[in-house]
């Protein structure tokens, strides 16, 4: 029983694994649906184009992740992985997201530099298990050109060309737009919260 870090060919996953290693939690980088089904917890990381998430379908990973969620296994989407938890993205309209959260990812408006790169501050909204005991206005590291809308399940927002969802949370499904594995103590704290969730 371990944490499955889902590899679907969207970027380099070494740093995510490294953070779990540092925290002392066993994890494995995998593209095998059976490993995902058997995992205690599932992480969908990823950077790049929304179209890359189509390979989650081709490899049978979508079904494995859906099955894990239905059985109450904690799921964490990071960056592109968080966007995939939403219904769709204007970056690739022919690719369906997981649809756990409603709404479409859209590009940052003209008038702000894009991508949004660097350390920005979280604004908390409501109770959150994944953000438990984090300082309320923690700085975290972002790098993305598309953003997800504010939804009922938004537990932290961030301000850049308007407010967007930085953290969403619905039962055991969590999404973070920033990179906790690159966000210093605040990020490690969040990952530790994820590891500590009962499953």
């Amino acid at each position: 029983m371990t944490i499955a870090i889902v590899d679907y060919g969207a970027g380099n996953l070494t740093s995510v694994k490294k953070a779990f290693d540092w925290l002392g939690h066993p994890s494995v980088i995998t593209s095998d649906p059976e490993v995902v089904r058997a995992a205690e917890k599932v992480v969908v990381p990823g950077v790049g184009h929304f179209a890359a998430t189509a390979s989650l379908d081709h490899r049978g990973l979508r079904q494995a992740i859906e099955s894990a969620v239905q059985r109450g296994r904690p799921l964490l989407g990071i960056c592109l992985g968080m966007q995939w938890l939403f219904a769709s993205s204007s970056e690739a309209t022919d690719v369906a997201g997981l649809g756990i959260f409603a709404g479409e990812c859209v590009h940052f408006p003209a008038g702000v530099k894009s991508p949004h790169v660097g350390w920005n501050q979280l604004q908390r909204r409501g109770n959150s298990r994944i953000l438990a005991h984090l300082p309320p206005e923690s700085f975290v590291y972002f790098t993305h050109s598309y953003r997800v809308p504010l939804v009922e399940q938004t537990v932290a927002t961030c301000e850049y060309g308007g407010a967007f969802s930085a953290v969403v949370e619905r039962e055991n499904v969590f999404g973070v737009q920033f990179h906790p594995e690159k966000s210093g103590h605040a990020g490690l704290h969040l990952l530790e919260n994820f590891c500590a969730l009962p499953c």
Partner: protein
Amino acid sequence: MLTKRIIACLDVDAGRVVKGVQFLNLRDAGDPAELAAAHSAAGADEIVLLDIAATAEKRKTLLATVRQTARQLFIPFTVGGGIRSLEDASAVFDAGADKVSLNSAALSDPALITRIAERFGSQAAIVAIDAKRVNGGTHYEAFAKGGRTPTGRDARVWAIEAESRGAGEILLTSMDRDGTGAGFDCELTRSISTSVRIPVIASGGAGSASHFAEVFRDGQADAALAASILHYGTTKLKDLKQELAAAGIPMRWPC
């Protein structure tokens, strides 16, 4: 609010940091992993490790150095110097780097930027430009091979091309200011920063906190590289960020 980044730069040769460090109280001031961790603890927003090794023999130790440095670093980590192919870049990412910085190789093979961006994402592809004033100061030329070889290319035009080929950030060094401590070249930085939509990291010339404030305000830099100003013990990172925050520059603070 998105903060301005202070990026600590380590020049490494054969696995050792080659610039002196007096203020950090380390057991071993030449160890890149220990130094990177210390900078991170002191509030650096990012670490850049530049391999300045001239020979292939010395370069072999780079991956081990990257691996060791990355293991205990949980802020963004860029590696540059001698990355000439997708394979070179892949090896550096596998060792734990988040971004690579391309310079001469991108100038001679601009498609390399696209290959790396397609495989690892644009956020992982930084193009470094060494720029020097030419024609009596009327424009800036990009130089290759550590500033030794003129390319005939206008730095601004090259930055725009790098962006269109998939670069996620520009690391812009003023050769005229580098090592002088006379301040960043704000005119150069602003000219590039207003010409591209991707972030621009200013480098070369930092001598005081006010120089950083100038390049963030007047130069419209998104980030600034701090190298010798940190290494020679003249400025501590914490003091630098505190001074900038007091001057109204958005900083990640407290760290």
